């Protein structure tokens, strides 16, 4: 049990690191997006061809990294929205039951399914070094591989989450909820 908890702690810290990193991608995405908007017009009216498919791809690559890699980090901090009409009235134990059953029956199988159906298309994309269909665009195979990374992280975070709920239900271990009340917790 101690080893498991240690591993769960490692997963939490890994996803928190990722969460901290992807926040900076928001700023980069905005700057690239604004550059693309301006570049479209400089190309059209001044012939100054700043615009490039590489930058157009880059903005949605950042977008992808934020929401895909952030999914597990979001689970750790309860960012995913809930219908809390009944949940908010439940005791801590009942909430732990909901989270335990939901994670084991929904989240973990869902992550496993996504890994199962995605690995072959990603592998194919990787093996042919799939390029962008647009001239000058960024290669597609690394961003497709992010789907696998994301759902692997989500699966691991789901396991860590399961362990935490079990600990709550057994009344042992670390009782401190990182973010009580959760996704409803308001603006940062």
């Amino acid at each position, binding site marked *: 049990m101690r080893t498991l908890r240690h591993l769960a702690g490692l997963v939490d810290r890994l996803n928190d690191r990722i*969460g901290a990193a992807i*926040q*900076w991608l*928001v*700023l980069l995405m*905005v*700057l*690239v*997006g*604004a550059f*693309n*908007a*301006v570049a*479209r017009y400089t190309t059209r009216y001044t012939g100054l061809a700043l615009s490039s498919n590489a930058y157009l791809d880059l*903005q*949605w690559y950042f*977008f*992808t990294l*934020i*929401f895909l890699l*952030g*999914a597990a980090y*979001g*689970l750790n*901090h*309860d*960012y*995913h*929205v*809930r*219908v*809390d*009409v009944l*949940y*908010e009235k*439940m005791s801590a134990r009942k*909430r732990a039951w*909901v*989270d335990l*059953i*939901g994670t084991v*029956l*929904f*989240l973990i199988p*869902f992550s496993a*399914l*996504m890994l199962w*159906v*995605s690995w072959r*298309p*990603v592998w194919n994309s990787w093996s042919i070094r799939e390029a962008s269909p647009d001239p000058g665009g960024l290669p597609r195979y690394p*961003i*497709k591989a992010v*789907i696998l990374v994301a759902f692997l992280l989500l699966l691991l975070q789901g396991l860590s989450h399961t362990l935490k709920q079990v600990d709550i239900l057994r009344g042992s271990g670390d009782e401190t909820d990182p973010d009580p009340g959760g*996704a*409803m*917790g*308001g*603006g*940062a």
Partner: protein
Amino acid sequence: MGALWGPVMFLGVLVLIFTGYPVAFALAGTALLFSVLGTLAGDFDLILFRALPERTFGVMSNYTLLAIPFFIFMGTVLEKSRLAEDLLETIGILFGRFRGGLALGVIGVGALLAAATGVVGASVTAMGLISMPVMLRNGYKDDLTLGVISASGTLGQIIPPSIVLIVLGDQMGVSVGALFQAAIVPGLILTGGYALYVVGVAIFNPEAAPAMAEARDVTGIALLRRVVVSLIPPLALILVVLGSIFAGVATPTEAGALGSVGAMALAAMGGQMTTAALRSAMQDTTRLTIMVIFLLIGSTIFTLVFRGLEGDLWIAEMLSNLPGGALGFLLVVNVIVFVLGFFIDFFEIAFIIVPLVVAPAQILGLDLTWLGIILAVNIQTSFLTPPFGVSLFYLRGVTPPEISTTRMYRGVLPFIAIQLVVLGGLIVWILR
């Protein structure tokens, strides 16, 4: 069993979402559960799941969805740098000397901001971030505050250039320009209805919508200064963002990115673009983007299985055997779209339900442009209706935890009533 899957799966997802488990995963989990049951009964083919990587990739590379984080970031920068608070307070000082004035300002700003985005998640979130602290601090009742904000935030669904209308035009084979034109009057009636309600509250229940005490102290040069410093720059930013979309100069995505940079520039000019504000804006944008887009991923999988089990055929069949002619058809379609709007993203409704509706509507002689407007107002109402309205989810995400969800539901009820009156009026209008 085949014919039963649709309704059973519908009920199943209702029950599971109500447990309080995160909606994105409850949707995906329901889909998995029913795919297994369906396979055991021989009614579902697991091979359909092979579409999932491509669907996910479709979300990743969706240019329109990219507008969501941009507009969220623009909103959070305006909020965290306190520009938005200054803007609303200035509007509050202008109108706030009257009871209910602040709420009227929010409705006006809401119609403006919402029109700029047309993406319900982004506009409700931005409105909540901007308006809620100011209203609560000035003694507005929490239910009225939440009602005004969530309703104003959905106005962008109907006020042009709404993305909803563009997609509907595409799916129904109607000119988008005609839809925009038709939407203006209902949009203004809704805005006016909201405003009338707020005026009514201010008259009959004054302590729910108090006048700002400080508003009357600011007059003359001081007031003018506030208007020039706090009101005009952000208003100009919003109008330029909006205008560039209206004029077709920029796509909503481009306008969102430029608007974000513009918001940072305005904040920097006022010396308000601190590192703390920037970090906080980035953090909130990350959090909300994860939440919104994963919700979409969950609903994509749900839809895949729902269609795989022929839930969409179940709906089509119901529609084709209706008593009551055009009125019966309109009532049933509206109820279905309304209920679906709780669970399924607007785009799924547009792609699954709307094509099923077009042919019978034409046979019944209904004007497709107005049918589109009715569907848009309906979806907007659905987004606003507890307990599943997405607008409420997004607003919940930016509401302080000490305000209960029940208060939010109470606050939104009068606005739903206004929506239903307008919807009823539109149904009478199309049947004229």
